[in-house]
């Protein structure tokens, strides 16, 4: 995976992609703004959401134990997974134990994070995504590019193509006369998925929230396919990041208002499913929770960075991010794209690789993400902090050009006389660089600026010298 600037550069060049993204994020941005505007206690709700999450995270050990006790009491089994490999092994073993070779899946970022579908495929288990957008991505052997709308980078015509080409390969084919009308596409998906719902004995989910007091899991969704997965199969396996805990049932009141308004711009999401352990004759007869760490406890150890673990994956920050809007999610090289991905991914995976080290710089620090975040994660501050960490880390390679420049410029700006000398040099160079007031193309590294933008010509006199010349004594 190339670092962000390279990946972003090819994404920016894809005008179809930019058009699809601009349209989709623009629409959802407007919807969100409208429904948030309706609530006059939004800032209180937001503060409450942030406070509940911050409190839970600072007492996470207690709440996790409480959760485990409650799940066990309700007839479920809790498994602990330190990393992706461990979580995948647990899930594969659980599926194998049922004797089944396929499973239906509820859309889940956590299972994307650990690449569970690949692990299952390697163990000869077919995992079928049942969320419409996730299905599109899976059929196309693509990867998601948005937290909430994984196929946001595709338009209807492209989706019709994917359905016609791929549906027959893994199940019920799309009708021969399929159009790109949304209702038609949804109907084709419904028929394709129904066959799988009726057949599968195993379901795999994530969870939006895990309630410590009762051991309950909560999934919110728009399509109702998740609910099918939760009711039909005999075995249910839920992979849940440890940061998903909230203390009590009552806390849901806050999040079930914050989440739908922030994510889909709806007042309430169409389906909210909750489940607690097992109940004879009702739903799955075997229930497993895999609690996943995978870098979370090390992120938690960072006083400021741990804010990122409050994230409820609403995707509001992606939809307002001007960088995301031009690049789409793939450029971030992670299942968590956009502003939250830029701070979460390097914390979960570290900053050793080029792509992870480039992510904290994938932002202009415009602050739009912070404004919309329903749990008030100060993403710009986290980005700056991670940049500092990246820079101060023991060097991955030899001295970098930027280091030298930053040190030099820092030295100049530390002292007014040095700055004045540089200004005189600039004025002098300005006098031969271009009289027109603009500079065109310059060689590297200035070409990074001037390839598509003109640069201003340095003035013949800095402010400082003008002040001294005209008001010499007055300072």
């Amino acid at each position, binding site marked *: 995976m190339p670092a*962000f*600037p390279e990946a*972003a*550069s090819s994404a*920016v*060049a894809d005008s179809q992609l*930019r058009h699809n993204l601009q349209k989709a994020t623009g629409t959802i941005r407007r919807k969100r703004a409208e429904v948030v505007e309706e609530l006059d206690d939004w800032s209180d709700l937001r503060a409450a959401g942030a406070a509940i999450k911050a409190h839970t995270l600072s007492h996470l050990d207690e709440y996790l134990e409480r959760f485990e006790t409650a799940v066990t009491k309700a007839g479920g089994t809790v498994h602990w997974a330190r990393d992706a490999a461990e979580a995948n092994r647990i899930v594969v073993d659980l599926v194998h134990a049922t004797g089944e070779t396929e499973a239906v899946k509820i859309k889940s970022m956590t299972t994307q994070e650990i690449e569970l579908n690949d692990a299952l495929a390697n163990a000869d288990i077919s995992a079928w995504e049942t969320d419409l957008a996730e299905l599109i991505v899976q059929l196309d052997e693509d990867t998601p590019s948005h937290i909430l709308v994984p196929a946001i980078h595709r338009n209807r015509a492209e989706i019709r193509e994917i359905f016609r080409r791929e549906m027959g390969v893994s199940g019920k084919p799309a009708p021969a006369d399929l159009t790109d009308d949304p209702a038609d596409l949804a109907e084709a998906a419904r028929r394709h998925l129904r066959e799988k719902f009726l057949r599968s004995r195993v379901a795999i989910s994530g969870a939006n929230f895990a309630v410590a007091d009762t051991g309950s899991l909560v999934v919110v969704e728009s399509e109702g396919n998740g609910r099918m997965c939760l009711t039909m199969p005999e075995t249910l396996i839920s992979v849940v990041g440890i940061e998903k805990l909230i203390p009590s049932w009552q806390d849901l009141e806050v999040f079930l208002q914050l989440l739908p308004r922030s994510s889909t711009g709806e007042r309430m999401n169409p389906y909210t499913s909750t489940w607690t352990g097992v109940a004879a004759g009702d739903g799955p007869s075997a229930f497993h929770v895999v609690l996943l760490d995978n870098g979370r406890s090390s992120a938690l150890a960072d006083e400021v960075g741990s804010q990122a673990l409050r994230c409820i994956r609403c995707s509001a920050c992606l939809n307002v991010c*001007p*960088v995301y809007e*031009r*690049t789409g999610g793939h450029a971030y090289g992670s299942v968590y794209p956009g502003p939250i991905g830029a701070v979460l991914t390097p914390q979960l995976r570290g900053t050793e690789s080029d792509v992870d080290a480039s992510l904290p*710089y*994938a*932002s*202009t*620090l*415009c*602050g*739009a993400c*912070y*404004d919309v975040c329903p749990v008030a994660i100060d993403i710009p501050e986290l980005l*700056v902090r991670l*940049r*500092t*960490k990246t*820079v*101060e880390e023991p060097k991955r390679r030899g001295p970098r050009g930027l280091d030298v420049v*930053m*040190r030099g410029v*820092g*030295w100049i*700006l*530390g*002292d*007014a006389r040095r*700055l004045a000398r*540089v200004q005189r040099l*600039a004025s002098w160079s300005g006098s031969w660089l271009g009289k027109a007031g*603009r500079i065109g193309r310059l060689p590297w*590294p200035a070409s*990074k*600026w*001037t*390839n*598509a*933008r*003109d*640069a*201003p010509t*340095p*003035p013949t006199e*800095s*402010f*400082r010298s*003008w*002040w*001294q010349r005209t*008001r010499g004594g*007055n*300072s």
Partner: protein
Amino acid sequence: MKVALFATCLGDTIFPNAVRATVAVLERMGCSVDFPMAQTCCGQMHTNTGYRRHAVPAVRTFVDAFSGYDAVVAPSGSCVGSVRHQHATVADSAADPELSEAVRQTAPAVRELSEFLVDVLGATDVGAYFPHRVTYHPTCHSLRMLRVDDKPLRLLRSVRGLDLAELPDAEQCCGFGGTFAMKNPDVSVAMGSDKARNVRSTRAEVLCAGDSSCLMHVDGVLSRQRAGIRTMHLAEILACTEEEQ
């Protein structure tokens, strides 16, 4: 009222006209302006690029130059945001309690031009005259870090002769972002081009903003497109009077 002027390194070096215009407006409003010669820069470029330790000398220079003033004014939302929101962190990282204390004393007195004119002087009409069609881009740090709200617009609306055109998607970032413009040039230019397109759609003669850095970026795009649209700092428009026309 006595005011210390913080020119910012970019204003001082590349955009002295915007700083001179700031002086003109402040003096017209009855302030006496001081320019502490020891000043350099707010250190934002280093802080935001991750070189926090290298920002310490700039912060030290800043507090030395500006301590003791009741009011410090700068023609940049971004640099003022850096002073008010980042200097404390930079100073704390240097583990120098004296420096941290000095920052706590100086930072709150620093204001962006429109904040100073509207909040401190209580003025929206600064006696300016500028008979041109102008559109205004609210730069991200003014908008979201300082929350200047509509103060710059109120100032512009009071300028005689000025025809203010609404900028579509005004609140979207222009794509400058300091070192972002160099580290991610393609995304930066894509954002700048969208901003330029919106500016052109207003049929304004002038694009105005409160940050020379953002203007430099959008101006670079407009100029390459030969759009024939000038960029001017808010101070430069406010400094224009009938007598000068």
